[in-house]
């Protein structure tokens, strides 16, 4: 980390066990100031435990936690410089919206006058200025979510922790809140750690994403990097549908390799030696279908599913089943049972570190 963009949160070789289960196993991350960092993975992967280790609700069995450069491994939560939005919001039911938002300021002994001003500002930021005197139970889910956010940002924490904060909202509201959350975070320059199992949400919101599985970070990178350059089959399939093809390297040059598969030869991006056995992954939207071409994998269309903006084509080939997405597919473009050649740009095919699980 450079001085210009220091890490607000650092986990160094953190490990946490619950009985016989290792929930978080040797996790190290640096989270840059002013960025949104997502912990993405299926339930039970350790993402929430990682967040709770940063908060101090859990104590690591090994390793260290730093917030703004200070070692906080054994510091209790209430002395750590963070705030949190809980999955169920955890708004205090006996306090009004304004009192909920003022809570953190009261605990920090901010004078009453300054407190009122900050609360009003925070409520305006989340567009809830008119609901200050309501109780949480009188609000809709989306409104409660905004109160939880206002309550967390009003204390100007070093880091904002968000535990699946949009999980309880319906799809429309969730997408709206994602955009709003992102713009709010950028305006305020807050460092945020975001836990989610929704890959679209992680891609939409994050500067960097850590994909977790069984307590281990499988891959860290920008949204584009983890989507386009997954290192493992798990990452590739968790971030959306993928075609997996196995084969043997038969030729290579500076930027690409040629892989011999049961159905024919294909190109891929990666650095492997000739005769290596490899698995490659191709996103369905990168797979092109051509009529009567000479190159690519021959396949025939088993099924066509119209999904509005995209149409899904299910294909069978000698290298296994394939799936292709086409935007703007017209009726009669391709038909079920038709034989096609499947091709892709070498750059769109990624060589995986491990076999498809």
């Amino acid at each position, binding site marked *: 980390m450079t001085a210009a963009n220091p890490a607000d949160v650092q986990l160094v070789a953190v490990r946490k066990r619950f009985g016989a289960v290792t929930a978080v196993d040797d996790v190290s991350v640096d989270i840059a100031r002013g960025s949104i960092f997502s912990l993405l993975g299926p339930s039970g992967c350790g993402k929430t435990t990682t967040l709770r280790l940063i908060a101090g*609700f859990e104590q690591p069995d090994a390793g260290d936690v730093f917030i703004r450069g200070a070692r906080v491994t054994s510091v209790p939560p209430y002395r750590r410089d963070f705030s*949190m939005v809980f999955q*169920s919001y955890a708004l205090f039911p006996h306090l009004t919206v304004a009192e909920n938002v003022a809570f953190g300021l009261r605990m920090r002994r901010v004078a009453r006058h300054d407190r009122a001003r900050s609360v009003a500002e925070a409520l305006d930021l989340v567009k809830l200025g008119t609901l200050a005197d309501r109780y949480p139970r009188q609000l809709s889910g989306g409104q409660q979510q905004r109160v939880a956010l206002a309550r967390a940002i009003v204390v100007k924490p070093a880091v904002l922790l968000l535990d699946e904060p949009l999980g309880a909202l319906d799809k429309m509201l969730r997408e709206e809140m994602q955009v709003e959350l992102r713009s709010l975070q950028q305006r305020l320059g807050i460092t945020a750690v975001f836990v989610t199992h929704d890959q679209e949400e992680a891609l939409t919101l994050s500067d960097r994403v850590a994909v977790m599985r069984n307590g281990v970070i499988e891959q860290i990178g920008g949204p584009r990097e983890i989507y386009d350059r997954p290192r493992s089959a798990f990452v590739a399939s968790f971030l959306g549908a993928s075609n997996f093809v196995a084969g043997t390297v038969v030729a290579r040059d500076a930027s690409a390799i040629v892989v011999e598969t049961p159905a024919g030869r294909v190109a891929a991006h990666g650095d492997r030696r000739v005769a290596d056995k490899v698995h490659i992954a191709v996103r369905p939207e990168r797979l092109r279908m051509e009529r009567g071409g000479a190159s690519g994998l021959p396949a025939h269309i088993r099924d066509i599913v119209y999904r509005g903006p995209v149409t899904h084509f299910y294909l069978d080939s000698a290298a296994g089943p394939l799936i292709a997405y086409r935007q703007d597919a017209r009726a009669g473009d391709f038909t079920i049972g038709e034989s096609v050649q499947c091709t892709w740009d070498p750059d769109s095919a990624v060589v995986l570190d491990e076999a498809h699980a």
Partner: protein
Amino acid sequence: MKAKWTWFLLAPPLALALVFFVVPVVYLFWVSLHAASSSELYGAALTLRNYADVLGDSFYLGIVRRTLGVAAVILGLCLVVGYPVAYFVALLPPRRRMLALLVLLFPLMVSNVVRAYGWVALLERRGVVNTTLRDLGIIDAPLDLLYTTSAVVVALMTILLPYMVISIANTLAALDRRYEEAAQALGAGPVRTFLHVTLPLSTPGIASGTLLVFLLTLSAYVTITLLGGPRSKLLVSLIYDNVTAFQWPRAAALAFVLLALALAFTGLLLALLRPGRVQGAGR
């Protein structure tokens, strides 16, 4: 259709309540508005004298005051002793919590009379407490522990404590621990988390425990009679005395004073604690 069924199902208990509760209460009130009679349950003339006597007599008012005082002390002790116990019980895993509550309930499985005589055996002049203190050389002459208001307070408190503990423990056990984490995340230490979050969120349990303890104190009789002396009589003892003296209308009037106290206290408590603002608010 649904409303019809609701009424159909509610009708039997409502009828029972009407016949065996509402009607007698109204009748009792009617009795309280009459003069006493030596031959009948109540005299012919309508009068407010029973109420005027009770509320204008320093003897009666003194007993009302003592009744409220005893109830307040018991309530205070039950809250101070009961809350920490409830807090501890609520933290136990479900099976052990169940067991702890059963242990707490155990004293209630022993008959009131047996329990009172147990206290007699402990507190009388040659009882366990006095003998032990004398053997230890702490006292020379036995203390008058029995037949005092203190004996009544201690004995009632031990009976009523489980009601308080169970009420509060149930509320605390059902409390979402995320609220406490949310308070900590906002910089509240353990003490302020308790004062600003846990305590206010447990008001439904405090309210129901307080009501139970207060109302049961008002209606306790056996313990007061067996452990209290003539100078520690409470309102209930007075009602009994008036009934045995065939002063039925006055006993009825006293019963309504007791009812008014209970209602006033309930109203005051609900207005003060406002448990409703916490209840029914999932998130």
